């Protein structure tokens, strides 16, 4: 079937089986490797992307549902100015570990901070509850999200 959608702010059109996952579309059809393929069952959160600004597991998202939607991946986010905030917060606080899960963690952070720029620890833990980091060390990740929120507020001059 023909799928038309907006991918990282560009209109795209592909032919795809209805039940192909958005994850495979991104990685195979568009060579966007920042969205990671791991468990493929919604357990690990390595494949998180934003669809119409909502955070979703791309491994659980069929092609037929992508039609007419707006998809933002880590590559799309990285092309925006505000990505620098995430990059600074995650690198300065050494929250990247091996790096495999970092793109998805940043997408989850963007999903949270776009709705709530001053989240509590509990809200951050809930927002990241679908992201598994096999290196462990969630404390630094939590601090990086708090730092990113702080930088975002500062940029917008919000206390």
């Amino acid at each position: 079937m023909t799928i038309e959608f907006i991918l990282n702010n560009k209109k795209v059109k592909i032919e795809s089986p209805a039940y192909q996952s958005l994850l495979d579309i991104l990685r195979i059809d568009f060579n966007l490797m920042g969205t990671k393929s791991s468990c493929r069952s919604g357990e690990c959160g390595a494949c998180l992307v934003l669809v119409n600004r909502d955070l979703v597991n791309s491994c659980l998202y069929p092609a037929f549902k992508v039609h007419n939607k707006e998809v933002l991946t880590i590559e799309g986010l990285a092309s925006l100015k505000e990505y620098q905030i995430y990059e600074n917060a995650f690198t300065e606080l050494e929250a990247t570990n091996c790096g495999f899960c970092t793109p998805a963690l940043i997408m989850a952070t963007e999903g949270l901070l776009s709705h709530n720029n001053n989240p509590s620890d509990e809200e951050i833990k809930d927002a990241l509850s679908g992201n598994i980091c096999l290196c462990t060390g969630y404390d630094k990740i939590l601090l990086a999200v708090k730092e990113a929120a702080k930088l975002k507020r500062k940029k917008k001059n919000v206390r």
Partner: protein
Amino acid sequence: MSDDSIILRPQNIHELLVMANEYPLAVIYAGGTSLFPQISSGLKEIPSHTISLEHVQEMNHISRTEKYLEIGARANLEKIYSIGPPVIPDTLLKAIRETASPSIRNISSIGGIICSGKGSSSILAPLYLFDTLLEIRSLSRSRWIPISRFISEKGSIQLREKEVLTRIRIPFGEWNYQNYRKSLYNSKSRDESLSFCACIRLSKNIILDLRFAFGGVSKRPFRNREFEILFLGKKIPFRTEELNALISELQFYLSPKDEKEKPIAYQTRCALEYCRYFFEEINLGIHHIPG
């Protein structure tokens, strides 16, 4: 069968029911969190027809009256969760939060969870607790049935051909205290968990109503009105021996007649301990619980 599915996109419930009538074997697709991994991994065949509920706005509404909360069957868990208390019962909110991360909550629909046939799902136990009703519609008729009758003892759902689950109705109750707990007993699967929920209504420390529901002890949530009735009219706090007797009674009710259906010891033990914690919290917090 073709190697691709024909996607039908009804715009309203009437169109949906017409399509369900015309294509009785079509898959009704809401969130797909259970179905999609099975199809993409090859465990299930690609359906020849898929009816996507995405554009059926009536099934995405959440409304409340004085007596009950009504949730459209395709409403996703995040939409329900973001409404929060007091409209959404505490136990249901906690069950949603404990069961699904935000990215899953954005996909998974409440109707899909009910229809997935996974009776152990933690979200079903609160729905049992509040005597939830389900609206089932087909082109020719509409019926409301209690969720306890919708899921059979063997865990299969009582949805006939051409029928669709359209609304979920949760009656409101005035509860002084609600509690939800969950534990995983198989870390490889989020579905295999033990969940406990309870709610209590008191007047001057006398129990007017008390309900318990357990998810994961059998193929559908466990709730037993006979056991609950044992508590009515009793005064709290419970003495230790009184509490022990009630927990022993619960152990009896949790033991199914069919040996094959017997839950594993760990689940039963968790269920009994959670029940005990619930009463201990009530005993401890009695002065803080209004009523």
